[in-house]
């Protein structure tokens, strides 16, 4: 038994380069139960981070009682992380689940039945459509529903109502990943595979605290680091994260200077001849402009702007340039910072310039923040058209109109679908009057919380919130719909490396709660949305109908699901798309042949100017004759818009801890996770703490021009001049929708600004000041196990004790094989 609160990543199973990652099956059952007590195991995958670990849910007497990793799955080889182990089941089974719909009566939310609640929605919706038309409706969904649910939402919004105002909270976590791939490769679609960790000689983690955001993926890296031929690791992060501690080079850049660093790395590749001229000529366009854009970024210029050493810049570039197989991963340190898309594209450029793409160990993982973010992107629920279709391509829109049986002009395509921040702006201005929020909590997760609360509370807004619990956001609603969640409904979803999993229904939802799919189908039925031939727009009887409809939508597209079925997803491993007649076992890596979906009729986007977000347009894109080559898009580095001042001298960044997910709606309901990281804190460097007279655990006020929080301080490994805050800690546990005199949510301080291309909000560029307000009564409530580690060695370590003991079975079976391994076997 292993205490997986104290040891986040679990027992090491070292392996060498090119070997298969050994299996280790992790399982956690309710106290007093062992596997013999379990009635049945129901197949699923974990939804408490973006990694997509396959698991089985233990069911006893009609209740979920535990979880076990699936040894046969290529994503996790049996492992689960602390959130999955301790949070999955308790997160669903808390006594305070919503079990009946609520409607607002005389200012208060009261219980009602489904007919009444849905009747209210349909009345308001119908009246608004008649009076103001489709642009009065907005939908803000999640990165945590199943693909059938997103696709239903996409259809009813685009072909039923006809509104362009649809987005997901994926805008906050993964929009830049999708956009960067569209800009560089012509389409969304992850080039690399987790399998590349097994084969690489060097790994670059760009703003990616993998050790806490995807703990099982990091366990795979740790196992490589513990084995022979360990890969070199380069970490770009202003914090002393667990990744940084294992890195050969740690570039602790000033927040907001990523493009300068990347331009410097690219320049070194050119200067030292570490580029692949043949690959560049055959498979890319734009090399000359890129070369001249990076020209001024000498290692010394980078050192000056980014606050790192020139020697480290040179050495990092040397590692990239001289290692045959390099894997890069990118996450929020790039996606939520200044010039997000521009920076993420430069990572793609490193690989395109060197031809390190589409081969074992050589690839890019533009990461996601949530378990089903990929599906929100694919299915048209988040500001894209379904199946990676291009809103600027009339033929693509026509395909959708044919699939859905509606006139092509019913589907809004005069501009890109409206992004989340703009949807909230339209609500603020009163032009969107019906906002339907599903499975997300913007009152805590969106920037500048005070403003978001005002918007949600606006007179004249009809707010529908569909969730498991009464979140901060739900407290503002006019109608609250109780949703069924993980283990209580069926559906499929897709992780960062395109692997599709099926999640079966293990138990009935509590009370009258219904799946998000049933709710959307019910709304469509009650609104009487029809195809042009008079038949119902959404006639699905359940999720499998939705899956089949989705397969048709993906036929021939890059994200081709036509070779996958619920049946095929049962028992074995998840399957990476594209999976079709040509690739019946799925596809491990994209772009092995250096051919990219940039043809005029295939591209998901015709691209943007990286500085402004101005669209390139069909004509100009066509004139470039890209024709299957990738685009080397350059970006000049510009200074961040909000920089430290005398009044607000420190830079503020936000992020995650390994023990909590999002706004803790599930993870706080787990005893073990709650104890490990119970309440908010901020982190400050030893040097800044000394200057400000702050000791470990002291209560501090952190202020920006937008608000303040008052929380304990952890004196630790953040870069000097920076302050870090975890973004998980809102107010619902005290039955509040906002601070009410006790502000703790990280987003009280952030400002409303977004990347001009991906429209992802910038959470990591605010300027703040920190003042001590009271002596502490003990250490800050921050874990000691990862990036939040204290400088003071006397702080007691974070442990879980007997409650957190997990059964780990090391190497019970041989490792699962990927589609490529199968092919190799066949060839042999």
């Amino acid at each position, binding site marked *: 038994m292993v205490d997986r609160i104290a040891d986040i990543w679990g027992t090491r199973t070292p392996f060498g380069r090119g070997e298969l990652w050994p299996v280790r099956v992790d399982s956690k059952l309710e106290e007093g139960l062992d596997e013999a007590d379990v009635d049945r195991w129901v197949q699923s995958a974990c939804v408490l981070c973006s990694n997509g670990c396959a698991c089985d849910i233990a069911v006893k007497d009609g209740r979920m009682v535990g979880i076990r990793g699936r040894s046969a799955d290529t994503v996790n080889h049996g492992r689960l992380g602390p959130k999955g182990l301790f949070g999955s089941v308790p997160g669903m089974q808390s006594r305070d689940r919503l079990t009946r719909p609520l409607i607002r009566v005389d200012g208060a939310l009261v219980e009602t039945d489904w007919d009444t609640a849905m009747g209210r929605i349909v009345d308001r919706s119908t009246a608004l459509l008649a009076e103001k038309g489709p642009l009065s409706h907005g939908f803000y969904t999640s990165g945590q529903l199943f693909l059938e649910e997103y696709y239903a939402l996409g259809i009813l919004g685009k072909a039923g109502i006809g509104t*362009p105002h649809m987005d997901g909270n994926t805008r906050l976590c993964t929009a830049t990943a999708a956009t960067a791939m569209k800009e560089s490769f012509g389409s969304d679609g992850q080039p690399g595979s987790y399998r590349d960790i097994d084969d690489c000689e060097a790994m670059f983690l760009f703003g990616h605290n993998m050790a806490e955001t995807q703990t099982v993926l990091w366990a795979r890296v740790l196992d490589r680091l513990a084995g022979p031929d360990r890969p070199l690791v380069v970490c770009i992060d202003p914090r002393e994260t667990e990744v940084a501690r294992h890195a050969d080079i740690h570039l602790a850049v000033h927040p907001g200077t990523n493009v300068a660093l990347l331009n410097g790395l690219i320049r070194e590749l050119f200067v030292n001849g570490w580029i692949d001229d043949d690959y560049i000529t055959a498979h890319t366009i734009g090399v000359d402009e890129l070369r001249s854009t990076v020209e001024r970024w000498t290692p010394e210029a980078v050192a000056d702007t980014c606050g790192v050493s020139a020697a480290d810049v040179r050495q990092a570039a040397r590692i990239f340039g001289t290692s045959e197989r390099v894997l890069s991963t990118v996450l929020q340190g790039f996606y939520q910072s200044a010039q997000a898309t521009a920076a993420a594209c430069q990572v793609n450029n490193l690989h395109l310039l060197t031809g390190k793409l589409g081969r074992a160990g050589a690839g890019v993982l533009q990461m996601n923040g949530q378990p089903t973010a990929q599906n929100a992107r694919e299915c048209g629920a988040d500001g894209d058209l379904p199946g990676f279709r291009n809103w600027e391509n009339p033929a693509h829109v026509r395909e959708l109109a044919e699939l859905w049986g509606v006139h092509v002009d019913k589907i809004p395509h005069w501009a890109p679908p409206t992004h989340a921040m703009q949807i909230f*702006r339209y609500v603020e*201005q009163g032009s969107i009057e019906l906002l339907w929020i599903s499975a997300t909590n913007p009152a805590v997760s969106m920037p500048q919380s005070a403003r978001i609360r005002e918007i949600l509370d606006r007179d004249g807004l009809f707010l529908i919130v569909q969730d498991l619990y009464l979140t901060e956001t739900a407290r503002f609603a006019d109608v609250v719909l109780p949703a069924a969640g993980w283990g209580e409904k069926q559906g499929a979803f897709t992780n960062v490396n395109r692997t599709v999993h099926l999640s079966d229904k293990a138990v009935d939802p509590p009370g009258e709660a219904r799946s998000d799919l049933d709710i959307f189908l019910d709304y469509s039925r009650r609104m009487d949305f029809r195809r042009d031939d008079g038949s119902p727009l959404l006639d699905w009887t359940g999720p499998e109908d939705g899956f089949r409809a989705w397969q048709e939508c993906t036929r021939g597209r890059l994200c081709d699901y036509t070779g996958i079925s619920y049946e095929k997803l049962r028992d074995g491993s998840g399957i990476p798309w594209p999976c079709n007649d040509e690739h019946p076992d799925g596809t491990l890596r994209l772009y092995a042949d250096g051919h990219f979906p940039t043809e005029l009729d295939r591209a998901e986007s015709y691209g943007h*100017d990286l500085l*402004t*977000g*101005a669209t390139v347009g069909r004509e100009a894109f066509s004139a470039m004759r890209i024709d299957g080559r990738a685009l080397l898009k350059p970006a000049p580095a510009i200074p961040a818009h909000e920089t430290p001042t005398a009044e607000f001298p420190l830079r503020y960044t936000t992020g995650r801890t390994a023990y909590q997910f999002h706004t803790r709606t599930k993870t706080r309901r787990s005893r073990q996770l709650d104890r490990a990281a119970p309440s908010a804190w901020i982190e400050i460097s030893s040097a800044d703490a000394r200057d400000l007279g702050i000791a470990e655990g002291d209560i501090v006020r952190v202020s920006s021009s937008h608000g303040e929080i008052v929380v304990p301080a952890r004196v630790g490994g953040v870069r000097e001049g920076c302050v870090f805050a975890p973004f998980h800690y809102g107010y619902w546990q005290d039955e509040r929708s906002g601070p009410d005199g006790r502000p703790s949510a990280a987003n009280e301080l952030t*400002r409303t*600004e977004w990347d001009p291309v991906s429209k992802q909000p910038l959470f990591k560029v605010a300027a703040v000041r920190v003042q001590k307000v009271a002596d502490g009564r003990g250490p800050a409530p921050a874990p000691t196990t990862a990036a939040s580690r204290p400088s003071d060695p006397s702080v007691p370590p974070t442990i879980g004790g007997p409650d957190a003991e997990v059964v780990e079975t090391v190497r019970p079976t041989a490792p699962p094989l990927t589609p490529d391994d199968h092919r190799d076997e066949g060839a042999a």
Partner: protein
Amino acid sequence: MRLPVYLGLLHGGERALAESFRQVADGHGDEPDVLSLCRTLADQCDRHESALGPIIDRYGEQPDDEPERFHAAALTETRTGGLGLLRDLQDVYLLATLVDMTWTLVKQAGQALRDDELLAVVAACEAETAVQLRWLSTRMKQAAPQALLVAS
């Protein structure tokens, strides 16, 4: 030689465009993308103006003798609301169009003169002006349906 008239037009046009971007940024600060991008583009116009300096030092600049017909005045105030944003961006678009065509015509003269220094300045600036136009167009097209159909 009347090139100095066009250099003057360009000089005044870039300055008016910079002022107008700043005016829109300040007036529509509640639109975060408009605020930050208009400031970025105003800085870009400032750089264009300074890049013209050495050229103007050589050729001089003459005042436009038809001010009522080639009017490149900056916005002096901004409107409010969704419709107001649209109108203001469209005003800036008109001004940017004037600047864009002025670069084109100065480039024509530069080619006929075989003035490499002038052509290098044009090459650096005219592409950025073109992107400014494209951004303005992109942003207006996105905003128009909401502003014209549902905004109060």
